[in-house]
């Protein structure tokens, strides 16, 4: 280890140790300060990650035998795709602690225990390169999230937490079957090695379906999204922040890490379906968000729409699309996380999440409304903010793929502007039912709202650094996908003329825009 300690393992183990340490603490206030300290120390421990090299290789690799009888390995590493997600997870933790400072007043110790446990599991999910290790972290993260909603949630927390748990666990049981099938067919659980293996189309077909179900529920994509609004609305604000910023990303990360590299031919085969579902998510999420009276529900439905952009970008299979998807993942984490924190902030004042109870705040809470306006603009993709970068990339990718897909995105983007303006206008200038005596943001609230704001502008105005990080990995992903999907087409048991035709015109739906060269 060039840094004197195994970085990724430390990032996973340290929060767990810190969580165990919480049991020694009696006072709630000390528990808050302690967790805050632990989360900052965690960030300090992550400093070696800044030496990340801008290449497509796996970095910070740690590899050890775990259960040698089954070939299970403790194998961690990051590349351009997972790097930003790990960073996002680590950065979200102190914000969550800060925004729960006064919001959570019962069982404070256990709450922070769940936050720390959650962080460890999330880092594990993004860093694991062994399928079973990945699954272990993937499932382990359900328990603290379930408790966050079920114990500290709103009135319907039992219903919401149960729905969340049932949906996500039911989806991922088939993922386990797929993982085992990969091992039996491909001979290993190691993801980098499986990426080199060519599987038969029939196998890919079923493996893709089993994995995609788990990931689509997690994202969530259109027909499987019903758990999300319930969970978001009932969760405490830190829970919503983690849910939006990190958990949803795991679904799209799964598509990028597993579906595309492991089952390239099936991904090509199902791409039209996935694109259709993504567009449905965008339009449906936006349309439903337009009609919400509850601010939190509105942001929750807007998440469905934004995540639709991500999955769409992924299944466009071109450089711009995948870049856009990654940017959108990062941006959605920052923006929606910040919006949920703001909802928590205002909820502490009004004790209501309804728009009609939170009107006219431009007069009473100008600083609050400034931040809200900023994040709302970023959310709808206003130029100069980070939301714009992600969305424009997906747009470019979509138009490269087919003008029709691009055209269908336009109403989606318009809907985003419509619902965000509607709620923002009411919150800023609506006529409140009574004069409010709420104090404006205090220092702590300033702190946790200012940090995401810096990133909104930084990514919005100078995204080059982030491009440098993700580009090598994205290029490798897309080129691998192209080459391997083509090979698959030839290898597939077809009569010779058909196979030749397949090799000449790699994918049927690519014929929609044959004249356009891939414009990278």
């Amino acid at each position, binding site marked *: 280890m060039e840094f004197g300690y195994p970085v990724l393992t430390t990032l996973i183990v340290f929060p767990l140790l810190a969580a165990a340490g919480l049991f020694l603490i009696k006072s709630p206030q000390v528990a808050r300060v302690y967790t805050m300290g632990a989360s900052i120390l965690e960030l300090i421990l992550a400093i070696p990650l800044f030496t990340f090299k801008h290449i497509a290789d796996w970095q910070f690799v740690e590899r050890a035998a*775990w*259960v*040698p*009888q*089954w070939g299970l390995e403790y194998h961690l590493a990051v590349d351009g795709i997972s790097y930003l997600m790990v960073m996002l997870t680590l950065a979200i933790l102190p914000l969550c602690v800060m925004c729960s400072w006064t919001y959570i007043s019962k069982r404070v110790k256990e709450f922070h225990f769940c936050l720390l446990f959650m962080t460890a599991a999330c880092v594990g999910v993004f860093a694991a390169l062994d399928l*079973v290790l990945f*699954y*272990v*972290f993937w*499932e*382990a993260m*359900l*328990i603290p999230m*379930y*408790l966050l909603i*079920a*114990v500290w949630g709103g009135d319907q*927390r*039992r219903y919401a*937490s*149960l729905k969340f*748990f*049932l949906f996500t*666990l*039911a989806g991922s*049981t*088939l993922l*386990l*079957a797929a993982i*085992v*099938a990969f*091992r*039996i*067919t491909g001979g290993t659980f190691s993801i980098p090695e499986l990426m080199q293996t060519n599987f038969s189309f029939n196998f890919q077909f079923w493996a893709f379906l089993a994995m995609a179900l788990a990931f689509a529920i997690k994202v969530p994509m259109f027909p499987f999204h019903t758990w999300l609004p319930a969970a978001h609305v009932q969760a405490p604000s830190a829970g919503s922040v983690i849910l939006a910023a990190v958990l949803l990303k795991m679904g799209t990360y799964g598509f990028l890490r597993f579906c595309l590299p492991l089952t390239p031919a099936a991904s090509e085969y199902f791409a039209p379906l996935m694109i259709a579902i993504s567009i449905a998510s965008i339009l449906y999420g936006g349309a439903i968000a337009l009609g919400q009276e509850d601010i939190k529900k509105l942001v929750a439905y807007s998440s469905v729409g934004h995540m639709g952009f991500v999955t769409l970008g992924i299944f466009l299979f071109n450089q711009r699309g995948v870049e856009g998807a990654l940017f959108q993942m990062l941006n959605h984490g920052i923006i929606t996380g910040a919006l949920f924190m703001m909802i928590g902030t205002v909820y502490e004042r009004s004790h209501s999440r309804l728009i009609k109870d939170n009107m006219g705040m431009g007069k009473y809470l100008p600083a609050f409304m400034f931040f809200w306006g900023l994040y709302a603009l970023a959310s709808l993709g206003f130029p100069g903010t980070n939301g714009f970068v992600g969305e424009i990339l997906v747009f470019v990718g979509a138009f490269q793929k087919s003008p029709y897909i691009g055209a269908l995105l336009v109403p989606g983007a318009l809907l985003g502007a419509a619902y965000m303006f509607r709620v923002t206008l009411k919150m800023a200038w609506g006529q409140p039912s009574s004069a409010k005596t709420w104090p404006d943001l205090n220092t702590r609230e300033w702190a946790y709202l200012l940090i995401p704001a810096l990133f909104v502008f930084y990514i919005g105005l100078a995204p080059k650094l982030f491009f440098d990080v993700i580009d090598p990995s994205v290029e490798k992903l897309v080129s691998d996908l192209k080459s391997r999907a083509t090979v698959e087409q030839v290898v597939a048991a077809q009569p010779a003329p058909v196979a030749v035709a397949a090799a000449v015109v790699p994918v049927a739906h690519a014929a929609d825009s044959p004249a356009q060269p891939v414009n990278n």
Partner: protein
Amino acid sequence: MEFNLIQIVPELYQLLLIVALFCQSLGDGSDTPPAERWLPFFAAFGVFVNIVSFNAQGLIFGGAYKLDALSQFFKLAIAAGFYVAVLNASRQPSLEERKRPDYFMFLALSAWGLMLLSSAVELITIYLALEISSYSLYAVIPLRSVNGKGVPGAAEAAIKYILFGAVATGLALYGFSYILASQHTSYIAELALRSWTWSGQPMAVVGLSLFLGGLFFKLALFPFHFWCPDAYQGASNETAGFVATLPKLGAVVVLVRLAVLLKPGLEITTLLAVLGACSMTFGNLCALAQKDIKRLLGFSSVAHAGYIMVGLVSGTAMGLAAAVFYALAYVAMNLLCFWVVSRVASDGRNLQLDDLNGLYKRSPGLAFALGVGAFALVGLPPTMGFMGKFFLIASAWDHGYNWLVITLVVNSAIAIYYYLSLVRHAYTHEAGEDVPTPDNSAFSLFGAGILAAVVLVLGMVPGRVFDFAILAGKQLLP
């Protein structure tokens, strides 16, 4: 091989305990220390004895009794389980003082029968050992009283258990006669060389199916499971904790030995797979509707019996090892859950789900342990339940029973709901009136903590224990 008493020290030691308890039960108990006071120490020493004789090897008593990695592994597990069960039962509120020596004697006898079972490699020996372990349980189940009077439900449970047990035993004997008539031997090693196809030996296949019925009764596999929820519900919490755990080990060890006959693709193997699928589906669906925790755990054990079948039908050493590991995981998880149930119901009542309400406030330690147990039974990482299930799936995939594997994972999804409701009631509901006062003594929390730690640690680093399971499996199916 020369017979040497040193080889069967664990069995002899257990027998010694039984004799001691028997002698004590003859007196009125006034001049001997109470059984629950001294027995735990001796049971703990029994675990040590089993560790010492872990490497015993040999085929004794005319080739009917085999000491090998599998048998010693299971004997150790049974001794450890017996120790936990004795500790658990030592504070039983619903057991009269004067009946305690008898109660523990029957428990010890049952455990002894299971120890014999894990070494038996001949059908008559298996049958006898099975009966020793069953008969003593028939007597234990009705031993439950409230305020000095017997509980009718317990008597009902005992009657059901006896009737089902008698029928299953009858079936097993009848099947045994068929096997003997058609294959002319009762030694498993020789039976393994004979044909077990339907076209070749229909009589033997029928016989084996019936014989397996006797084991399925112990294991509570569909359709021999009907006694299970009723018996758990009627018996006291501690007794149910014993009945739900250790006898399954005995059944699994015999099934693992018989698995050498069950090549994939044989009719009887397919039958086993179908029964396994029915068992998990039926058990899980029934458990969804339960309010009584012991009934819920009863149906859950029906489902888990089905899961174990997945490893047995795969016909590989890894499959057998996975089944062995899962049986161990099952016992650990259930001992943990029943430990918590027994401690929460400190007045000996039957716990309803609502009685768990607000447990996190009344006893955070027990609530956490219950959470670990429930999530382990679901099969969530990082617990032993997950590793066990993962090994089962990995070993059975691509051996002709992929549909069974899919049934298993779908069933795990169904099962979440009711296991989660244990956690839900303990953590999210507020306590109502008339909830039992949990036992928060150091004894209770320490036991729960140790069992929870076992479930978690073996879930994270299962390698060492799994090595023993593989050793046992390889020996049967090299």
